[in-house]
């Protein structure tokens, strides 16, 4: 009997390139890199089929540190380049890595259209609420009042919520993670990878140099349990150090409110069960900022539909079927032609 040896499964470290990683020591990007390498190993990603595309920024250095194919492009345009790659070769497994400035300032338009078209890629948005690479100016996700080199008296403009933006653009997969969430982050990436179509993942990433601790209001050890809710499809949305809190739809409103289980006669049955396919629910979850209601972590929304490439392939097949000819020479001779005879 002929036994074909199964190729050795790749380990996370096999996805690391030989390049020295050059982020600031303590930068949240390191943790995300580790989680991505673990996710690639978990899903058994083929290096040769995998392409990481990025724009410009600290986050966008990502492709250099992986042993897959990588394209470090220009500021904000990674979604467009990735779209070109996917319409040319839909077989490739494309990941996009982007910062909050890259994806929501200069590249906001392209992200919108990548999502709207539902191009089958994973889009990872490293949100540190700051422009890291250009030394700390405020970004479109910075909270109003952020002091930075370009806003010494505090910024005036209101921040955009990446997740709400993605929902508005029509995303069919939305998840959220935190750099420090080493155990769960690879699973979030694996879920994004499994989803056909544009998968949008926001990762809160600490910039230790220019915006250290911006997320501490919901990531510090002592508040994690009460200020974060980790979603699971089909499970009631319960959180808290002792699972003492839950979410339910507020009376007469389309918003979630926090209730204490066991108080005022509230039981687990009153708590809303997370349904990933519920778009309205996803909007309500996106609204939660941590102060009065916990920040939603995990898969907020997942409801697949046909990807852009599938649509394009369908059109291609139809066009080929309808075409009167596939021969360019013949096409050039269609319609009115005339022949000049030898004199």
């Amino acid at each position, binding site marked *: 009997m002929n036994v074909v040896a199964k190729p050795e499964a790749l380990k996370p470290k096999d996805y690391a*390139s030989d390049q020295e990683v050059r982020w600031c020591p303590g930068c949240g990007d390191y943790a995300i890199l580790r989680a991505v390498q673990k996710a690639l190993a978990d899903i058994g990603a083929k290096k040769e089929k995998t392409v990481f595309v990025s724009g410009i920024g600290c986050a966008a250095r990502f492709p250099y540190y992986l042993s897959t194919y990588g*394209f470090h492009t*220009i500021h904000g345009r990674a979604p467009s*380049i990735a779209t070109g790659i996917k319409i040319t070769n839909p077989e*490739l497994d494309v990941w996009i890595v982007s910062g909050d400035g890259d994806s929501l300032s200069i590249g906001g338009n392209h992200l919108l259209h990548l999502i709207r078209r539902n191009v089958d890629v994973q889009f990872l948005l490293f949100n540190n609420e700051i422009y890291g690479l250009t030394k700390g100016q405020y970004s479109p996700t910075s909270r109003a009042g952020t002091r930075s080199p370009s806003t010494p008296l505090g910024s005036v403009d209101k921040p955009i919520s990446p997740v709400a933006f993605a929902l508005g653009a029509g995303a069919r997969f939305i998840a959220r993670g935190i750099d420090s969430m080493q155990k769960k982050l690879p699973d979030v990436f694996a879920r994004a990878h499994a989803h056909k179509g544009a998968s949008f993942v926001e990762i809160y990433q600490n910039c230790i140099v220019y915006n250290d601790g911006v997320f501490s209001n919901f990531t510090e050890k002592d508040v994690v349990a009460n200020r974060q809710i980790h979603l699971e499809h089909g499970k009631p949305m319960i959180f808290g150090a002792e699972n003492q809190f839950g979410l339910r739809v507020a009376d007469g409103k389309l918003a979630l409110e926090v209730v204490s289980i066991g108080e005022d006669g509230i039981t687990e049955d009153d708590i809303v069960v997370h349904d990933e396919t519920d778009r309205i629910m996803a909007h309500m979850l996106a609204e939660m900022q941590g102060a009065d209601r916990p920040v939603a972590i995990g898969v907020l929304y997942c409801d697949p539909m046909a990807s852009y490439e599938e649509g394009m392939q369908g059109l291609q097949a139809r066009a080929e079927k309808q075409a009167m000819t596939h021969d360019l020479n013949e096409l050039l001779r269609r319609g009115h032609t005339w022949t000049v005879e030898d004199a």
Partner: protein
Amino acid sequence: MSTISTVKKEVPVDAPRAELESAVVRFAGDSGDGMQLTGGQFTLATALAGNDLATFPDFPAEIRAPAGTTFGVSSFQINFGSHGIKTSGDSFDLLVAMNPAALKVELKGLKQSGIILADTGSFSDRNLRKAGYDGNPLEDGSLDAYRVIALDISQLTLDSVKEHGLSNKEALRCKNLWTLGFIYWMFGRKRKATTDWLETKFAKRPELAAANVAALNAGHAVAETSEILDGFQGFAIPQATISPGQYRAVTGAEAMAWGLTAGCQLAELQMVFCSYPITPASSVLHTLSTMAAFGVTTFQAEDEIAAACAAIGASYAGGMGITSSSGPGVALKGEALGLAISTELPLVVLNSQRAGPSTGMPTKTEQSDLYQSVYGRNADSPVCVLAARSPADCFDVGIEAVRIATKFMTPVIVLTDGYIGNAAEPWLIPDVAEMRKFPVNFEAETEDFHPFKRDPETLARSWAVPGVAGLEHRIGGIEKDYDSGHISYDPANHQKMTDARFAKIKGIADDTPPQKVDNGPEIGKMAIVGWGSSYGPISRAVDNLLAEGLEVSHIHIRNIWPLPKNLGGLLSGFDQVVVPEMNNGQMLTVLRSEYLVDAQGINKVTGQPFTIAELEEGVRARLGG
């Protein structure tokens, strides 16, 4: 459907016709009068009659201009004759004015004692006022310098189609075919191709086909039987000497779409054409969008930046990325072009130039993006630039662009303009199956691979496409180490890479034909140097001047960058170098800076192509000095 007709070499028998070497006809009417269609049919009949020809449509800028207004006039011009027709003609011999606005707009282009065919049925007080006339020019003697055929074409058309039971509106729509029939008689054209075409077009509504054919025949009969002008028996235009073979009429936009497709087929690559709509570039996108069955993928992006980037992504993934726009859109693509230069990926950027700056005059023509193409980027970022000279030439330039882009792993900018894109000329249809292929060899060797390994001859880097195990690599816009392709900030390395990029583009000149003199002596008094769509008028002007005995030569440059290697030497053989351009002197400064030659410009930026006459005049003025 294909219709093949044969041009027979025959002697015209209708003897009393006045023989002309060539003629220019301009059809002008309201947007709804079907002038483009009429012009198209006349073109076909003229080609079948064995004349050489060139045409140009002139559309109103407004999408749906109000009926009867001067800015709603739609025109179509054709120049045809027995030899060397290279432009759609300066001024016209016959003006067809379907309404007062058309007369008002177009009269200035009519030759002295030229013929006007006007539909009196549309010269109502209301229409006259809309066109800005106080009185009726057909009656007040103001057209005495011309020969006027004033007929109530509207009524004659209604009479001719009466028995076909159309509504009044539909019946009036046959006016253009009545007029066409009339003009067919004037120039001795056959009606068969048009009646065939009508029968196919209206196959589902035979009564419309019959009515239009009746109108065509009626117009023809009226011209034939009535004394339309004193002693006028119609014109005869001898056949041109045309190389034998199968022909079609082709616009620049079609030829470019087909040329790029042919180029990708010869390179054995999938074409990925990414664009964002803009006048006058959109017609190429429209043509290619119907060509999915020929290995063409089209992508309408959200903007020009995305279009350029998607094309770069396509090339990165192993397709032939092509992006197309007009000057303002190409400006947006600038940064992406830099990425393609830095990552040394093949890319074709098509620029259908239009009058600028900014929005400028979108429907008018200009060749003012030469600086933008050659110089218009940050840093030292050389690319290859080619320019097409005529509608049919777009086919060859499209192929050449793909060949150079893939052979040298570089962006190639292709310049056309609104004039070339919309104009049509007869085209001896090439045999694509007989063309020399230039298949791309993707990198396959994993041993010692790095992405910036170069071909020692062309200096092109190796093209390694995702999907191949063992060739995984990272590239980007950061400077790369010459020997490993890794990121490098080393000063000496940047010098070396900059030099390599420069040398690679310069080396394209070793792979492209040397500059030839198009017409006239190789050494002499004056070289007239042109590029792009001014080829037609310059070529004809030089022809005429040579015939007058003047010593002039025509040099037409297709390879804008790098310039042909022998061009400097060639120019030094002339006492004077004159550069006519539809811009303020862009090729002029390139030539002056490259060759230290004391070249002089003839410049025109009116949104209109050069006329032959103004070029002749400009050259004479400079020869005299």
